[in-house]
């Protein structure tokens, strides 16, 4: 019996030539990493099993093309989620430090300049007692929170970080992300009713009120940006901003979209659904322990997605202008994340300085301020297009 070393079972083949490659011709970096990880893990397993039972079919099956792609996809999910999760934790840490300095204090200080504090808070929240009041509508209570969290994580993972870091490369990618983004207020409304608590009910109603104020201007601006680029594909929109970012022709749109994105992420000044001074926690009042921890995390996922949207549409995505292509393609993921965190920094400054807006005032602002501004933005873009500049 010939002894086969582990190196016989692990071979880093070219993923693009794999007939099962799921991404149809585009190179995908995290998939590459996960594919290689699976080859290591699968190859090791196959070698082990081969040692016990030489020549068995399971070992060859474990490193066949299809299974490699399948296993790679599973690890791919974990890799994507981990990167997004760490990115969101970093934005949470950024908020605590920057908001602290705005308020003339230092923010969290323990553990790697305060980063591990966020992790510790998450662990503490997950270990708290999961109290459920007696008369809640159990099915909607459980399902809505899972859906809110699930949808938020879904869109966070769907944001591409560069040309080679994406989950799907839809031609209508932008629209799908915005559609999923807008689902959450529905779930919040139902959740507020399900908790059998007047504060939650009011909070849920307010989330619905919030949604009708900012959705339309937001969608108009997305339509405008895609009009300027000529496509709804996120990769193509970013590629169209290679030389000049869209913030320059669409400056009004940038300001308005920044505020609409703050409203979408339910941050101060638009956090009426969770208004702490009036309704104790708004629609999250009756959620305790792990559920509340996940809701808080979902809040930050949505904040991250809002900032990512602003970056993609206005700040050039992962492009740096006026540099050569080789520098531009060096680490576009880091460039994208840095820009996202910069936009989040702007949102934190807004939070530090402003108060909470009342519900009727939000509807006023949404329809009497944002809407006309987005229409003006649209007209400017239309003139640019017709004038031939774009």
């Amino acid at each position: 019996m010939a002894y086969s070393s582990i190196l016989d079972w692990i071979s880093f083949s070219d993923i693009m030539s794999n007939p099962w490659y799921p991404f149809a011709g585009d190179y995908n970096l995290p998939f590459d990493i996960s594919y290689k990880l699976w080859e290591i893990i699968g190859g090791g397993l196959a070698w082990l099993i081969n040692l016990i039972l030489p020549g068995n079919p399971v070992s060859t099956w474990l490193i066949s093309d299809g299974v490699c792609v399948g296993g790679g996809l599973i690890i791919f999910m974990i890799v994507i989620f981990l990167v997004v999760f760490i990115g969101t934790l970093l934005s949470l840490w950024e908020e605590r430090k920057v908001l602290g300095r705005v308020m003339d204090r230092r923010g969290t200080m323990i553990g790697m300049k305060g980063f591990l504090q966020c992790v510790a808070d998450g662990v503490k929240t997950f270990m708290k007692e999961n109290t459920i009041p007696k008369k809640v509508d159990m099915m909607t209570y459980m399902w809505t929170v899972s859906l809110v969290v699930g949808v938020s994580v879904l869109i966070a993972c769907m944001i591409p970080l560069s040309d080679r870091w994406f989950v799907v490369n839809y031609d209508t990618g932008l629209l799908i992300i915005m559609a999923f983004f807008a689902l959450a207020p529905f779930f919040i409304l139902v959740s507020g009713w399900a908790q059998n608590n007047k504060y939650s009910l009011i909070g849920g109603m307010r989330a619905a009120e919030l949604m009708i104020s900012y959705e339309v201007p937001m969608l108009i601006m997305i339509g405008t940006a895609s009009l300027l680029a000529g496509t709804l594909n996120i990769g193509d929109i970013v590629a169209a901003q290679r030389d000049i970012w869209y913030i320059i022709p669409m400056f009004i749109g940038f300001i308005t979209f920044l505020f609409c994105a703050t409203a979408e992420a339910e941050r101060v000044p638009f956090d009426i659904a969770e208004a702490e001074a009036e309704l104790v926690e708004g629609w999250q009042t009756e959620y305790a322990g792990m559920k509340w921890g996940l809701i808080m995390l979902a809040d930050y996922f949505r904040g991250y997605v809002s900032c990512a949207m602003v970056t993609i549409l206005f700040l050039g995505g992962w492009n740096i202008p006026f540099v050569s292509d080789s520098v531009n393609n060096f680490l576009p993921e880091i460039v994208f994340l840095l820009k996202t965190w910069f936009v989040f920094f702007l949102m934190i400054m807004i939070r530090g300085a402003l108060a909470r807006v009342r519900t009727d005032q939000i509807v006023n602002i949404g329809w009497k301020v944002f809407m006309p501004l987005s229409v003006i933005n649209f007209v400017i873009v239309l003139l640019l297009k017709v004038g031939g500049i774009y």
Partner: protein
Amino acid sequence: MARDLMDIRAETDELTTDKMWVIMGPQHPFSHGLWTLKVELDGELVTDAEPIVGYLHRGWEKECENRSYAKIVPMADRLCYAASMTYSHLYCMTVEKALGLEVPEKAQYIRVVADEICRISSHLMWLAAVGTDLGNLTVFLWCMREREYWMDLFVRLCGARMTTNYPRIGGVRNDITELFDRDVDRCVQHFEKALWDIIALIDDSSIFLSRMKGTGILTREQCVNLGITGPAMRGNGVDFDIRRDDPYEVYDKIDFEVPVLNDGDSYSRYMVRVEELFQSCKIITRAMQKIRAIGKNAPYRYKAPTNVPAGTAMCRLEDPRGESLMYLVADGSGKPYRLKVRSPIFTNVSASKPLVVGSRIADVPVIMAMIDMCLGETDR
């Protein structure tokens, strides 16, 4: 057959909405103390309100009947733990009136300075609460930072930050210390500059202004009849301040202005208190000049007898929150027969219903924040 608009309208006219009672409190982020406000809501509109107090009732006045006069001074501090100097000052003034005792001039000026520092720190705490009620924590932390300087001044003066136990029957506990003398002017100058930062954050933001303007409006007659006193009343156009119109201690010798605004909404009550902060700084500076002119060796306390002759005495004072009053019935022994405290917030809270009815639930914290609740003195 398609339903046309008239059918749909007929259907929706039959739908009724229910009003619901929401109990805001006793554990609630807006209440700043332990009390409950029950509001009846029709959607977001408040149609009825009922305040419930009494969670903190300690029977203070009955306890006083069991203690000698000197022992009640620290108890008076605990009436309003955030603005404690004014209550012990008021108590000492009442007993001195019953005794017919003159207080030395230097002690009167020191009491005035201590009162005004207390007013500033109480107003800063109020401003911090306004910030949190509106959803902005930056204002809260900046006000608390400024308040720390004034607390430090109290430590220089008498050793304690909050419940100071400083006035005595017949004067004050000790003369102003050197450190206090050195620091009080520096504190006032720093504060007059730093306050502009905080005010700029609020006044330059149309969100803050739109939350405060036009809410909680009362007419002048309503305000006076309901018994609302203090800055809330002066924001309604009533030009009355006990320090100027019914002066006690040496307020008639110090020159200051009383801000009065006519609009009657939350914004004018807010502006009155902010102006009062600036005026208090002026009073402190002028009173300190007079204290330095009187000199270091002047007496600051006269000895008071332990037994108060039989009779009644009433004194009132301009508390940071309104008009506070004490009424003493003495029977010749060393303990008071009856000591009654009137707290301004007790009456201001009883006026919650006319203040809040007709506004939205989102305005309720703002309106009640302008009343500046402190539960210790409401419930006693």
